């Protein structure tokens, strides 16, 4: 499977955050400290990412990313691994 371009995923993720959270983010934005999301905002946003990209983010992965860039890398890995919602 060809690698999915990280930059494309990042652009879509930033647009998603703008739409869902009404926040202008960058690759380095931290969800809690910079975007001021709480834990409910964050799991809600991840569910939107799952829908947007057609992936399933396991709960344990949720706790491994703190920035938009890290979340995007997670999505990229899951797409690369064929981890998609049935």
């Amino acid at each position: 499977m060809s690698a999915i371009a990280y930059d494309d995923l990042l652009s879509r993720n930033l647009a998603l955050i703008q739409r869902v959270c009404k926040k202008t983010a960058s690759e380095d934005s931290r969800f809690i400290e910079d975007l001021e999301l709480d834990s409910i905002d964050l799991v809600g946003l991840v569910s939107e990412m799952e829908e947007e990209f057609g992936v399933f983010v396991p709960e344990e992965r949720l706790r491994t990313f703190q920035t938009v860039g890290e979340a995007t890398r997670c999505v990229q890995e899951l797409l690369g691994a064929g981890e998609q919602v049935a």
Partner: protein
Amino acid sequence: MNARKAGRGVLLTGGSGYVGGLIASTLLIHEDVTIVAPVRRTVDRQRFLEPVSAEVRLAGHVFDEAMASRIHLVELPERDRLAELDDAVARFGVDEIIHSAGCLDYFNAGALESINVDLTRAFVDQGRRWNVRRFIYISTAFSSGYVHHEIAETLHAAPGKDPTDYTRTKRVAEELVAASGLPYLIARPAIIIGDSRDGHYSGKQYGLYQLWAGMERLLCREWHPEIHALAPRQPVQLVHQNAFQEAFLAAYRHLPDDRIINIVSDQQRLPDLRALWDLWLDACLRPATTFYYERMADIPLREINGKQRALLALASVNLQIAGHAWRYETSSMDYLRTKGLRFTDATRESVALCQDIFIQESKLIQEFLGVHRPFFASETMQVDVVPETTLARPAAAAAAAP
């Protein structure tokens, strides 16, 4: 002014937090003490007094200038410079420490260690220097970790697997306090919820309120014809905030030194996790079908609605803690009842009152109900999903339902 005239001094940490505020209001009403509260620079006097004065008033007392003057805020020094509190300790005659400050951030291991363990150690050390007559530590009913025996009112001899570092660090702190050489009291409250009399709640969205807030913000967007709930039939150990205050005060007054008290409700009267789901679903969603699972591993997470999956991810640790079979020794509570303690156990009805207030105060839920109530099912089919059953076989699961 002679500070001692206002009563002996108690140093209260975490006073700007929920539990600390409940303790502060209780002491102001019932004890002749002056409270010295070390707080972070960001906490001003107004912000500190607001919840404390509200609790005093809700308890039917007047919060006047005289009462306010019995609270003295001091800046919380760095952990290795707590000796900077020496002046305040001497000035107000502090002879007791109530250490209520704690970190609840389950997944921030550094903060949990720093606040729950290192800060406790630092205050214990200072308590020895100040020669306080008692060190009171506010722990948690879950500090044992997952064990399968009754949780005794002693230090945990053989700790079980910890749900998070939170329970581990609270247990370590208990051990530090007990080994300090200071006379001590360790209070282990269960999950604190709103007042049993009027349902009001002054805490943050932790515990049951985290679940309700998650349901509010994640589920109350559209009607869900199906709900997938982690809902084993285990009593959930909840304690009303007014019951906590009563038990704390009784323990403060009557328990001899070097005691540990489990502040818990009567296991027989508590609602189980399934009842808590049902309460919410009946009030806010009325799905056509509710699937109940015993374990998180049984839920077909990839196949369910994304917002429900998000809710389960948000609350998974608390739901799993709530789903464990916790059993407690209650000798101290039994003893305190002989001393006049009137402790209101949490029941399905009293929790429903708290939930009603939460729902009434939520603009989001009220708007949701206004739009979506017409879609609510007149009856909800309840399906107990046995392990290994998946959504690929819903008909079989439904057929197994009572």
